[in-house]
């Protein structure tokens, strides 16, 4: 079992949902990213989604769009993100999922990326614009190297697509809570969580819910039904609003600790 599956299993054993925290690599700079990931892990994040910035993030709302722009303006590249993962690995064992869009991956070379991701100690890939049909070039080499490939399920996915996604998953499935972009206001997180919970039982595979999960209360709502919960834009926003890297670190520690408390099932 990989580190991500381990983290989900451990959280389940401790009667809580695994808390997945998104950080945009390179926002405001990669040195700070390294510290932010360590801080999030120390504060209760079970898995880190490390965002690789892309110029045209069509699935993201304004918060992550702005974070991506700041990161690219600071000179972030996929190669530098991989270096940062190496640095993070010397400080923490928290599982790291590379999260992003396909073009930078295609441009880097899928096989080469898989090898270097494994060598630096990251744990898998989630690519928002790479549905199972298009994913062989990345997914198969990743699986061969023992890395995870995390497929998405959307509210619009029909039975066949859900089955296909479940078959492509190696650790957990990412359930998009609503039709929309990241950071949107969740319309009905409770019923989305219920539907995802039913799917999780049926598929017998851990599900994490993301999109529109912002507060401790949201996390608690989700944690009642599924094994994992993802918070992204809310984290990116506190980093954006912080006046210094030190302030960002402190704000992320506070937020993640609060979210982690929300992930506990009473």
């Amino acid at each position, binding site marked *: 079992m990989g580190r991500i599956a381990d983290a989900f299993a451990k959280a389940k054993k401790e009667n809580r949902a695994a808390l997945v925290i998104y950080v945009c690599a390179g926002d405001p700079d990669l040195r700070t990213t390294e510290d932010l990931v360590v801080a999030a892990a120390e504060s209760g994040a079970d898995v880190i989604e490390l965002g690789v910035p892309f110029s045209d993030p069509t699935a993201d709302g304004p918060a992550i769009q702005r974070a991506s722009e700041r990161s690219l303006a600071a000179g972030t590249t996929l190669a530098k993100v991989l270096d940062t993962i190496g640095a993070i690995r010397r400080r923490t064992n928290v599982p790291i999922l590379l999260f992003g869009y396909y*073009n930078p991956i295609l441009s*880097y070379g899928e096989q080469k990326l898989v090898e270097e991701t494994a060598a630096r100690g990251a744990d898998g890939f989630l690519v928002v614009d*790479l549905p199972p*049909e*298009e994913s062989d070039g990345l997914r198969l080499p990743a699986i061969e190297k023992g890395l995870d490939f995390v497929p998405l399920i959307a509210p619009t996915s029909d039975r066949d697509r859900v089955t296909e996604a479940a078959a492509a998953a190696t650790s957990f499935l990412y359930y998009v809570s609503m039709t*929309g972009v990241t950071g949107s206001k969740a319309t009905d997180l409770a019923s989305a969580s219920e539907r995802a919970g039913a799917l999780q039982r049926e598929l017998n595979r851990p599900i994490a819910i993301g999109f529109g999960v912002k507060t401790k209360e949201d996390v608690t709502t989700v944690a009642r039904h599924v094994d994992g919960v993802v918070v992204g834009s809310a984290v990116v926003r506190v980093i954006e609003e912080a006046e210094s890297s030190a302030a960002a670190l402190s704000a992320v520690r506070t937020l993640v600790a609060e979210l982690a408390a929300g992930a506990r099932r009473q």
Partner: protein
Amino acid sequence: MQTPEPAPGRYGPYGGRYVAETLMPALDELTRAYEESQRDPAFQAELDSLLHHYAGRPTPTYFASRLTEEVGPRIWLKREDLCHTGAHKVNNTIGQILLAKRMGKTRIIAETGAGQHGVATATSCALMGLPCEVYMGAEDVRRQAPNVRRMELLGAEVHSVKSGSATLKDAMNEALRDWVTNVRTTHYCVGSVAGPHPYPLIVRDFQAVIGKEARAQMIEQAGKLPDAVVACVGGGSNAMGIFAGFIDDESVRLIGVEAAGDGIATGRHAAPLCAGGVGVLHGAKSYVLQTADGQIVEAHSISAGLDYPGVGPEHAWLKDIGRATYGAVTDAQALDAFQQLCRTEGIIPALETSHAFAYLPTVAKEVGDDADILVCLSGRGDKDLDTVLAQLKSRS
């Protein structure tokens, strides 16, 4: 697990569907609806009737005798500028809005660069009584102001997009974000042969009427097929439309003309086929303008409709297999050609279209004087007067 079936809609290695999972079922639904519509004589009859009585088809093919004198080979113009709304875009929007109604969609969104596709979408929505919202880059809102007013008069809501380079690419990003949010009720009316499958197929098919008519008209009027067919290429819909009529005629050269902006060597251009690399943008694999790290680069062109860092996947494939060839001309060359057509033929072409005309001297050298060249006159240039007059003023 078993390897899933490769996605449909491939042109060699190009095309495909690189979009968020949320949109995948909608693309399946659209594919099914389109295939059903193709088998439904009533749909075809309604489409043909609207194209004829409303959009003004067939458009003429016209022998441009005075331009011929200046260029050398015989130049024929397929007059898409005479379509209702002043460009070929309406061929596609009438088809897609009919399709959207058939699917029971109650809201239409579109992206637009020069505003021609936005105007055509707004027009087709007014015709069929559907609400329409158009995403347009803030930079394009500025340089294509008359089209913004036209869309608003036609009842559409125009969203000015300020992110990124504030041009067509960013308008398409915002349209995709809208679609992913409202996908259950909304049809995204894509304006070019770009985007995820089935859009490159649907838009090509709806535009193929250009090539189908032109082929018959050439045989009737010139007594032969053209030796070359020339069209400008941004996303590439007018070019695919006219190429479609001749693709099986091996003797006919197919030539696409991209925007070289300030010049290919300056890096400030919009010519992914001539000077880009393979990448994935807006749901399809094709040629794109990108950095070494796979970040999409802003395009640059005087023509808002060509100012796009990607191109339809079928063009990428036609280039690779050599069935079509692609060149590029600069802003300055396009401006010269714009004026030449005004003076010689009394036709004010769109700046996009002017790129095709600017490439004619190059094509003439390849085919010689005893040859027939068919040019897709994709749109009229009234919308470009502000831009052109400002440029000409700064020249003098």
